[in-house]
């Protein structure tokens, strides 16, 4: 007798078809955008052969150069600052007995994930407008601190995950061997934690690089980042140099993400 066991239990009819359509739907627009950034013509719809013209146009544009510089400075500053703060906070909130106020710290750290970005942007606009008026300072400091704040939860998560996977035996062994607290941290904890810290820094960098709304609200004149520059270009006609910039940003994000996955892989 033939056994009727020809269908997998966990098979849902249509799931494969729908998910294939989803993956095509997710990637097709991005691929079209990338392909058209190499278009020879100036249309974003009609294909006129391959060329690097739009990359040249973008590169020759001083506004784009300035925006690239601002983006990189802000993202680097915010990533360094938020990762340092997140590392300390992670060391303070893991591998120790639960204490009163721990939930408060978690809520504070994750707060930027829960509040709509537009509300934070408005709030920061009010504060920075007042500070700018009072002090006259209008440098990139505002952007760096604001970005650092919303990057903290992204930096904190991988660092905390890494710490939770490390037990205290090595640290105990170090102090048994008369290492000072600082030596133990410097020689034992920090090297072990490094992959988590780097992963956190990358997520923070990508998060800062992607920000539009908060930057748009608090930037001073001449402080456009690449995303706010591109958003500003929308008022004029869409030109394929925006595609070229987008493609480069996509490539950078992809490189950082791959590095992130390599760093966090192989963890038991």
């Amino acid at each position, binding site marked *: 007798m033939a056994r009727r066991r020809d269908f997998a239990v966990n098979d849902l009819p249509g799931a494969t078809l729908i998910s294939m359509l989803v993956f095509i739907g997710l990637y097709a627009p991005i691929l079209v955008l990338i392909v058209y950034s190499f278009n020879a013509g100036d249309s974003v719809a009609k294909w006129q052969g391959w060329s690097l013209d739009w990359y040249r146009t973008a590169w020759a544009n001083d506004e784009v150069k300035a925006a690239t510089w601002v983006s990189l400075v802000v993202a680097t500053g915010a990533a360094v600052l938020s990762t340092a703060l997140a590392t300390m906070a992670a060391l303070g909130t893991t591998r120790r007995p639960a204490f009163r106020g721990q939930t408060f710290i978690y809520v504070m750290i994750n707060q930027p994930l829960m509040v709509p970005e537009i509300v934070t942007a408005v709030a920061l606009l009010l*504060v920075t407008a007042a500070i700018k008026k009072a002090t006259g300072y209008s440098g990139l400091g505002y952007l760096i601190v604001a970005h650092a704040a919303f990057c903290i939860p992204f930096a904190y998560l991988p660092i905390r995950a890494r710490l939770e996977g490390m037990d205290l035996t090595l640290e105990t062994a170090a102090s048994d061997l008369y290492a000072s607290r600082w030596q133990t941290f410097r020689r034992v904890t920090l090297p072990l934690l490094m992959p988590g810290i780097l992963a956190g820094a990358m997520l923070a960098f990508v998060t800062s690089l992607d920000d539009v709304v908060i930057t748009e609200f608090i930037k001073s004149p001449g402080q456009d980042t690449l995303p706010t520059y591109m958003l500003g270009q929308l008022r004029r006609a869409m030109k394929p140099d925006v595609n070229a910039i987008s493609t480069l940003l996509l490539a950078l994000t992809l490189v950082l993400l791959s590095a992130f996955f390599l760093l966090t892989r192989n963890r038991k």
Partner: protein
Amino acid sequence: MSPAEETAVRDQVRSAWYLSAPALAVLTLAAVGPLLIVLVYSFLTPGTHGNIEWIFSLEGWRGVLFEYDIFDDTLKLADGNLTIFWRSVKLSFVTTVLTFIVGFPTAWFIATRPTKARAAWLFLITIPFWTNLLIRTFAINQIIRNEGVLNTLLLKAGVISTPIQLTYTDTALLIGMVYVYLPLMVLPLFATIDRFDMRLLEAGYDLYASRWQVLRRVILPIIKPGIIAGSILVFIPCLGAYVTPRILGGGKNMMIGNFIELQFGQGKNWPLGAALSVALLVIVTIALLVYVRTISGERKNG
């Protein structure tokens, strides 16, 4: 506990706070503190060229719900504002439902792959999640606008004779929001389906349940926490969406986010903008509280 142990514990708690203090300081300065200032500003008087005057006023809050009739100066409901609020809630809700309808089969598909392939599929969902939202909105815009790829293809194939006008419609906004927020639905759904014990399906089928019954009575109840988490993760950013409606909705089809921005730009009514922001925050907080209560209720029952 001996006195020595007590001191040790106290030391640990103190160092926990010392270590967390710098992060908390920056978050207070640039995330939590400013929210309180928004609350204060919502009770002030608008300045003539934007900004505010330090005079207490309820006008900002009145402006959220009411407006003066231009003809007889009577107070009536601000239909325009309410329409924008209602539209935002409606569009966010529909987006959440749509992302679930396509996100659930996708999450199921990923979770039922062999281990190695699963990591690859998951990576493919994660990339868009980390990719610039603005770029993804550009990308979908280039597909659906009048001279876009979709219309060009359909015209060439002779399916349509005039381009379908999608940009600056609610449909375009929905397509765009589903497109950009879908990964936020798939990831938490995947996380719960991944822990789902597939033997329960066999049990269901052995007891003569149909596929539909297994889906409705076994799968959906068990993955409910993932559904709620995904819905919250999609609903909240949708409600506060600013970039996607600005690009795909044009100036006409605003959502709350764009309406708030308007008060700080052309509108020059900072107190009204502040009051609208607080109102949005309240809606989001209610959604989050419902989420937390449902999740903790699940834990108690489960």
